[in-house]
């Protein structure tokens, strides 16, 4: 896509680019990229989306994008935008189809040498215990509509009450695993139907469960506080709200297309369809979004229980003995009502993070007590062949990005291109040559998710770290991957 954008762009410093307010924009766009990541910003179509978001009514501060920016639906992936509660709007496009797609990280006391001979068995056990792949559903668990609605309200707490994991886990989940004000009664029958059989499943595409080890430590004190020592084993889970979330998003895009017309909101792009936050439509969307978000929290809580069980079975030691604790669980696609400092005053705002992660600093009231000195962990998965990172939030992120940071690597190849590039190659064998055992439900998924298809996440993380909107703590390397 080399068509030049029609608006002006200027570089602020090594890590920031500005789209100055122009045309219908109400505010500037600020994109966190360096020249290596984005050598020709004028030709970068995703910046058009940053500019479009800057046109939405009630936007507070700038229309932001993180270094993993790429073209999305309406909002760019990597987009962050805050809105005034009274004059601003909420948009499903600013959250995405996979509501509360997010990442959870677990720590263990195990070291790499201790599991080397058992890695295949561990990955196979995960594959058996966690349904994955297209159309995956659990046959051992029948969720009634009443149960499903309880999940929507209680989120991860529902799962803990049913015996999945520990109550201690909840304090290490964003929002304690349940966003308030969910309203199960507004969820459509279609969404309920899609959600019911899929609770407790991983899904497919870029969702995964991964066994990693801590390869490098950048900040010893913080790493220790998070329970991440060099060479120790960690487990990551990347998954979202499954068919429930996709259906809710689709249901509300229809509502918002009509609402945009009803409230006279000029849309530079139909996919930015929205409604005033306090309108009936806006409140309904947030209440439905919360249902999907809480379902995703419950889902990740259940899957981490099965991770613990898989390790227990293969290693013949209890999760408590293995010290399998939850480090943290974050959302990547969400709209949150948060309080931030604007013009010297505390102000309640609706923050959209689409392919972006909350990154609150040390001493923030929403950061768990045992992380008060470190700041909130920020989990950044890379592709399955290279590395992932753990960062913590910073004060500068609070000042500049409403306490937000990047979320991952971003694709460079379309799925179609990846399939072509992989012809005649065995991705499984290539991964094994790198020392990574991979198990996937579908060959095509594996090919579409191969490392070559993704940007190098370390570039993304370096920009975030150097711009000061996240602080590197550790680098993780994959050993075993389970994909849907």
């Amino acid at each position, binding site marked *: 896509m080399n068509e030049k954008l029609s608006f002006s762009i200027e570089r602020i410093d090594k890590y920031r680019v500005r789209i100055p307010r122009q045309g219908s924009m109400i505010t500037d766009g600020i994109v966190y990229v360096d020249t290596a990541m984005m050598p020709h910003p004028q030709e970068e179509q995703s910046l058009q989306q940053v500019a479009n978001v800057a046109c939405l009514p009630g936007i507070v501060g700038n229309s932001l994008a993180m270094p993993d920016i*790429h*073209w*999305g*639906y309406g909002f760019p*992936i990597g987009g962050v935008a805050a809105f005034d509660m009274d004059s601003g709007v909420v948009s499903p496009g600013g959250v995405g*189809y*996979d509501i509360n797609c997010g990442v959870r990280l677990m720590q263990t006391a195990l070291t790499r040498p201790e599991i080397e001979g058992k890695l295949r068995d561990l990955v196979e056990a995960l594959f058996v215990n966690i349904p994955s*792949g*297209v*159309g995956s559903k659990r046959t051992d668990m029948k969720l009634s509509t009443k149960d499903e609605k309880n999940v929507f309200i209680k989120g991860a707490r529902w799962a803990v009450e049913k015996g999945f994991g520990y109550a201690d886990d909840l304090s290490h989940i964003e929002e304690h695993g349940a966003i308030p004000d969910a309203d199960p009664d507004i969820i459509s029958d*279609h969404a309920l*139907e*899609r959600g019911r059989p899929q609770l407790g499943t991983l*899904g*497919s*595409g870029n969702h995964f469960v991964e066994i990693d080890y801590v390869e490098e430590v950048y900040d010893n004190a913080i790493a220790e506080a998070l329970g991440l020592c060099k060479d120790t084993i960690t487990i990551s889970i990347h998954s979202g709200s499954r*068919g429930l979330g*996709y*259906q809710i*998003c*689709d249901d509300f*895009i*229809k509502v918002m*297309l*009509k609402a945009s017309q009803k409230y006279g909101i000029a849309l530079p792009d*139909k*996919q930015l369809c929205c409604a005033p936050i306090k309108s009936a439509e806006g409140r309904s969307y947030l209440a439905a979004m919360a249902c999907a978000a809480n379902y995703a929290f419950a889902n990740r809580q259940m899957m981490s229980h099965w991770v613990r069980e898989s390790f227990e079975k293969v290693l013949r030691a209890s999760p408590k003995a293995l010290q399998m604790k939850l480090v943290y669980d974050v959302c990547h696609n969400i709209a949150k009502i948060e309080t931030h400092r604007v013009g010297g005053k505390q102000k309640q705002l609706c923050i959209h993070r689409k392919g972006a992660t909350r990154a609150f600093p040390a001493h923030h009231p929403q950061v768990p007590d045992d992380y008060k000195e470190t700041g909130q962990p920020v989990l950044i998965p890379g592709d399955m062949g290279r590395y992932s990172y753990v960062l913590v939030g910073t004060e500068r992120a609070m000042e500049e990005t409403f306490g937000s940071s990047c979320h991952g690597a971003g*694709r*460079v*190849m*379309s*799925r*179609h*291109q990846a399939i072509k590039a992989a012809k005649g190659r065995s991705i499984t064998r290539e991964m094994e040559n790198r020392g990574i055992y991979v198990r996937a439900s*579908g060959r*095509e*998924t594996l090919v*579409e998710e191969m490392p070559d298809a993704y940007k190098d996440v370390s570039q993304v993380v370096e920009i975030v770290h150097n711009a000061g909107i996240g602080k590197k703590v550790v680098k993780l390397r994959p050993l075993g991957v389970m994909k*849907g």
Partner: protein
Amino acid sequence: MRCVNVKRYEFFNHTADVGIRVFGNSLAELFENAGFALFDIITDIAKVREHEMRCITVSRESIDELLVEWLNRLLYLNATELLLCNKFHIREIAQQSLRGEAWGEIFQDHRHVIKTEVKAVTYHGLKVYEENGLWKATVVLDV
């Protein structure tokens, strides 16, 4: 009656998801071919047999949105019933409504392969239009 020279669809480049450009000699055929494209992406459509039929009636504000609705309804059947479809017939279609049928069978482990999970049909770059007597549509699927 489908003109054999018209291909049903082709891919266009979209980094994160799947972009398709669909063709048809009529609006009805365009929508039938869009249904075909959806399931051709989801599964090995050659292995799907016409054992069951579902009637689908939808209405939306415009022809573009109608296409999204038609495909999302098919996707819903795929997601909730594990239905795979290989044949489509649009009985009636206007700018804001259609009545159609989809034939296929329920997914069976030993016979069918699922290639890609399509999460949703998006409005991104959505366009239904006629050009030189041929109906075309562009639509992006979130996968």
